[in-house]
C-alpha cells in the first residue's frame, strides 16, 4: 500500500511537472540590442554652372544677367541601429549638410553689382524609424532644418508609415510639412525707406538692408549724402512659405528579375511663393519685383521599373508626369544601365530627358505688361528642354576598399544642358563606412 501511494505521488509529481507553466528561457537566445553605429555615409559634390538670363536681373541676357554658380556641398549621415525587447528594429539617422556657393547674379541684388556674391547653407536632419520585421510594418518620424545665408530659414517635419504584403509588395505613406521664412531682401532700388525727415533743414536718415545682411543708416542733408553708419541694426522682415506634402508609394517585385514602383505626391504650397530680389522688367522698361500667386498645388506621379538583364546588365528606368496649378506641365524620362564588370564593380552610364512647358505667369525680359496681375521672368518657370548625361562607377568589395570599414565607393559625373543656355557640370563622391 505504501509502495502504491508512493507510485501515485510520483506519477502526480511527474504530471504536475509536465503541465507546469514555469517560464522557460528563450531557446533562440534573443537579447535586445542597444542602438549602435551601423553605417556612416559621406557625400560630397562640386557643381559648376554657366548661364545668363538671371532671375535677379529679370531674365536679361547681357553681362548683368549672368547667372554663373559654383557650389561645393558635403553631407555626413550617421545611422544607428538597435533592437528592442519585442524584436523591433529601431533606426536613428543623424545628418548634417553644409554647402558653400558663389552666385554671380546675387551680386546684382544691389543694382550696381556690389552685393555679396557668396553664401553658406547648413541643414541638419534627424530621423527615427521603428520596424517590425515579423509584421512587415514600420513607422517613422523626422525633423529637418535648413538656413541659407540671409535668404531663408526652413523647418520641416515628417511622419512615415509602411506595410509589406505577402506578395512582395510594399505600400508607404509619408506626410511632410516645411515651414519656411523668406527674408525680404529687395533689389537696392526697392529698399524700404524709413526716413525721419526734418522738414526745415531737409535732412533725412535712410535705412538700407543689403544682401550681405548689413543694415546701414545713411544721413542726407539737402539731398546730399553726408554720412553713413553700420551700427544701426534692424531685423529684416520675413514672410512665411509653407509646403505640405502627402506622398504615397507602392513597390512590387514582379518576378525574379523585375521590380517596379509608383510614387504619387500631393503638394500644397501657401504663402510668399516668389522671391523679393527677383526683378521683372515691363515692356515699358520700368522694373518691379516678381509677383506670384500665394497658392500652388503640385501633382507629380513617378514610375520606376528595374530589370536585371542577363547576368551583368541592369536597366533602371524612371518616368514622371508633373502638373501644377500654375499651368506648368513636365515629363521626365530617365534611363541608367549599370554594367557589372565584376560582382563588386559596376559602371553606370545614364541619360535623362526633361521637357517642361512654361508657367502661365512667365514672360521673358521686357515682355510683361504693367496691367498683368502676376508676373515672373525666372527661367526655372519658362518653357525648355533639358538633357543630362554622364556615368558613375561603384566599388563594393566585401573586404573593403583600402581599409575594411570603407565598404562602398561611388563616383559620378554628369553634364546638364538646358535650352535656356544654362549648362552645368556636377561631380559627386559617396563613401559608405560600416
Amino acid at each position, binding site marked *: 500500500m505504501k509502495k502504491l501511494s508512493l507510485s501515485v505521488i510520483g506519477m502526480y509529481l511527474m504530471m504536475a511537472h509536465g503541465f507546469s507553466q514555469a517560464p522557460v528561457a528563450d531557446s533562440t537566445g534573443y537579447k535586445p540590442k542597444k542602438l549602435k553605429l551601423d553605417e556612416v555615409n559621406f557625400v560630397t559634390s562640386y557643381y559648376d554652372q554657366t548661364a545668363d538670363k538671371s532671375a535677379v536681373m529679370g531674365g536679361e541676357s547681357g553681362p548683368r544677367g549672368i547667372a554663373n554658380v559654383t557650389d561645393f556641398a558635403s553631407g555626413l549621415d550617421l545611422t544607428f541601429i538597435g533592437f528592442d525587447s519585442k524584436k523591433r528594429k529601431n533606426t536613428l539617422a543623424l545628418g548634417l549638410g553644409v554647402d558653400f556657393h558663389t552666385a554671380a547674379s546675387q551680386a546684382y541684388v544691389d543694382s550696381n553689382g556690389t552685393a555679396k556674391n557668396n553664401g553658406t547653407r547648413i541643414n541638419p536632419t534627424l530621423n527615427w524609424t521603428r520596424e517590425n520585421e515579423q509584421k512587415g510594418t514600420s513607422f517613422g518620424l523626422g525633423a529637418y532644418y535648413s538656413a541659407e545665408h540671409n535668404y531663408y530659414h526652413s523647418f520641416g517635419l515628417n511622419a512615415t508609415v509602411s506595410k509589406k504584403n505577402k*506578395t512582395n509588395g510594399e505600400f508607404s505613406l509619408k506626410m511632410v510639412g516645411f515651414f519656411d521664412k523668406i527674408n525680404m531682401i529687395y533689389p537696392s532700388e526697392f529698399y524700404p525707406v524709413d526716413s525721419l525727415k526734418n522738414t526745415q533743414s531737409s535732412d533725412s536718415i535712410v535705412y538700407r538692408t543689403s544682401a550681405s545682411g548689413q543694415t546701414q543708416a545713411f544721413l542726407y542733408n539737402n539731398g546730399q549724402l553726408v554720412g553713413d553708419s553700420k551700427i544701426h541694426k534692424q531685423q529684416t522682415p520675413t514672410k512665411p512659405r509653407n509646403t505640405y506634402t502627402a506622398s504615397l508609394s507602392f513597390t512590387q517585385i514582379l518576378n*525574379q528579375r523585375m521590380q517596379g514602383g509608383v510614387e504619387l505626391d500631393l503638394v500644397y504650397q501657401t504663402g510668399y511663393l516668389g522671391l523679393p530680389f527677383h526683378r521683372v522688367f515691363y515692356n515699358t522698361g520700368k522694373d518691379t519685383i516678381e509677383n506670384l500667386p500665394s497658392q500652388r498645388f503640385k501633382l507629380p*506621379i513617378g514610375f520606376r521599373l528595374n530589370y536585371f538583364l542577363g547576368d551583368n546588365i541592369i536597366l533602371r528606368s524612371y518616368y514622371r508626369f508633373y502638373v501644377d496649378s500654375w499651368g506648368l506641365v513636365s515629363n521626365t524620362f530617365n534611363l541608367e544601365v549599370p554594367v557589372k564588370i565584376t560582382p563588386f564593380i559596376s559602371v553606370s552610364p545614364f541619360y535623362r530627358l526633361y521637357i517642361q512647358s512654361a508657367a502661365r505667369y512667365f514672360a521673358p525680359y521686357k515682355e510683361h505688361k504693367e496691367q498683368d496681375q502676376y508676373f515672373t521672368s525666372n527661367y526655372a518657370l519658362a518653357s525648355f528642354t533639358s538633357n543630362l548625361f554622364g556615368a558613375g562607377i561603384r566599388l563594393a568589395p566585401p573586404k573593403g576598399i583600402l581599409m575594411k570599414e570603407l565598404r562602398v565607393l561611388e563616383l*559620378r559625373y554628369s553634364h546638364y544642358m538646358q535650352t535656356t543656355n544654362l549648362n552645368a557640370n*556636377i561631380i559627386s563622391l559617396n563613401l559608405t563606412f560600416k
Partner: protein
Amino acid sequence: MLYTLRKTFILIKVNIKSNYMSKCFVLCLVIFGLSSCAHVKEYQKSRINDSEMSLSNRNVEKNELNAESYREGSSGANGGKTGGGCGCN
C-alpha cells in the same frame, strides 16, 4: 484651395488626353495589375536584392537631384524634395 485643385485636375485631363502619356500610364497600371500573379520566394531574390536593383535614388545622386529641383519648375515623386528651402541663385 478647391478652385486650385479643380484647375489642376482639369490640366491633368487635358494633358493625358492630348498625348501618348495615357498609353504609358495604362501600361504601368496593367503591369502593376498583373503583379499579384507573381510570387517570388526568398531564395529566388538574388537578383532582386542586388544593390543596383534598388528602387530608390543612389546616395551619390543627392546633390544632383537638389540642383535639378532648383533649376527646373517641377519637383517631387522621385524621393527628393518637394518644397522647402530657397536655392534661389
